[in-house]
């Protein structure tokens, strides 16, 4: 009875999503082995070994596993699956890409984006953009699960490091090749791990204003920056800033929504935040309905005042 956790990493570091998925994996009640599939990924494996509750780390290190492409990663998971009762991954863009492919090859119906482990075969998951919560029981012998990070605490580092075992990789023709990537570089906290998120919407009006108004406030609060779909579609912010049903799901201590109305799709990505602040000129906006604190007025007047009040 063992659980395999497919880690999300960039070879050098382990994302916080993996530490959160580990907390969910441990709730299944079995030993957890963490699989690091990558290229020159020893640092990520060492980071995983330090996490409390990891019984063993499997390191599959091969150039074909660079960039976490779905075809080789899913094939590896399938090859290892016979020794495991459950296979878990964080519901990151990488986990969501790889795990269903492996599930189909194992003839298992995946349980996506769980927010609670009720029993080792029963889980809660949001549906309809979080407007309903479904409790499902899996009848498959093997469970394949992705985990919504915002719903689980990140596992901490333990006192002793788990052993790292090397797994042999047989590279196969996959039909896909990595061409390039363009990743946002930032010194700010990661959106899904930040304690405070400052998010902007269409009312910012332009990319220049978005940066000019939001970024200094975010820096003062040591906050991550998010955006509504409308702001991303309009080109005010890059796609990786998007918070919502199909973007990033966040649940920080404090979420400050500035000039965004709060479409259902956006609320789905942030309504589990501990404290929500809405700064909006429309007091009937949906975001104001769910906010703990609302400040009604023109954001271009309010933000400088807020900046001053923060000292």
């Amino acid at each position, binding site marked *: 009875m063992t659980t395999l956790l497919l880690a999300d990493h960039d070879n050098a570091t382990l994302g916080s999503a993996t530490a959160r998925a580990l907390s969910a994996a441990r709730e299944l009640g079995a030993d957890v082995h963490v699989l690091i599939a990558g290229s020159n990924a020893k640092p990520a494996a060492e980071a995983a070994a330090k996490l409390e509750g990891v019984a063993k780390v499997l390191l599959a290190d091969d150039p074909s596993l660079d960039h976490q492409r779905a075809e080789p990663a899913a094939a590896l998971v399938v090859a290892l699956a016979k020794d495991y009762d459950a296979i878990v991954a964080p519901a990151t*863009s990488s986990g969501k890409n790889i795990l269903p492919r492996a599930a189909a090859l194992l003839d298992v119906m995946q349980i996506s984006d769980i927010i609670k482990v009720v029993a080792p075969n029963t889980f809660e998951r949001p549906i*309809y953009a979080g407007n*309903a919560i479904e*409790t499902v029981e899996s009848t498959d012998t093997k469970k394949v699960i992705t985990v919504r990070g915002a719903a689980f605490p990140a596992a901490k580092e333990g006192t002793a490091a788990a052993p790292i075992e090397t797994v042999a990789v047989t590279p196969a023709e996959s039909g896909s090749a990595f061409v390039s990537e363009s990743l946002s570089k930032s010194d700010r906290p990661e959106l899904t791990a930040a304690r405070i998120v400052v998010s902007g919407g269409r009312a910012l009006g332009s990319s220049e204003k978005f940066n000019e108004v939001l970024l200094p406030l975010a820096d003062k609060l040591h906050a991550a920056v998010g955006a509504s779909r409308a702001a991303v579609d309009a080109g005010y912010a890059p*796609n990786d800033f998007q918070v919502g049903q199909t973007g990033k799901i966040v649940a920080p201590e404090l979420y400050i929504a500035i000039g965004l109305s709060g479409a259902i799709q956006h609320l789905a990505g942030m309504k589990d935040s501990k404290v929500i602040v809405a700064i909006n000129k429309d007091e009937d906006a949906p975001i104001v309905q769910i906010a703990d604190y609302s400040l009604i007025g023109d954001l271009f007047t*309010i933000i400088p005042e807020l900046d001053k009040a923060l000292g």
Partner: protein
Amino acid sequence: MKVLVPIKQVIDANVRPRVKADGTGVDLANVKLSINPFCEIAVEEAIRLKEKGKASEIVVVSIGPAKAQEIIRSAYALGADRGLFVETEERVEPLAVAKVLQAIIAAEQPGLVILGKQAIDDDSNQTGQMLAGLLGWPQATFASKLEVDGDRATVTREVDGGLETLALTLPAIVTTDLRLNNPRYPTLPNIMKAKKKAIDVKKPEDFGIDITPRLKVLKVSEPPARKPGIKVASAEELVKDLKAAGVL
């Protein structure tokens, strides 16, 4: 090259879903149903490929209850050439859908399959990846840009850290993200024409596939409600309140 586009009917994106009082699901009676927004983007992308001379025929496929046939007509009105509808009143999970699609693809032999990345009802985000696995085809999920050249597709994907570009050898599976395109509106003459067009209707049994769900839905409930909030008069008051709440 033939392009196959699997599509799903879901509750309209602008309707607020209501959980049924008996906890068995979401109330879909007398609620506006539409083509899933991501599926509509998939149809649009196929049409653009045809307009560029990269695709020769667009075949749309849907699986669902009889009334879901409407979305095949919606796809016809946008420009799809042929539609296949697999009728079932059962709840169909992504794994079962992927198996039915696998059987259809064996017969249709498309060069490219474009699907929505996620249906906005069950939010599973699985079908495209599962189908790619069953077929042994390469996949590019969450696409924001697609270029087809001969037997290769270059796809830019929206990933957590930004954007990633992959090259795929066709046949392949692509799933759409929001910014791939803005779907067109159908014209009235095309809507009229779509009403008269034939739809090939089948049953899951015709493909010899067992669609019995693997997940039992024990309960569907409302999410926990948030406490009512307060309006603050000024930025100073907001900062004071947030400090008192211990979040600043």
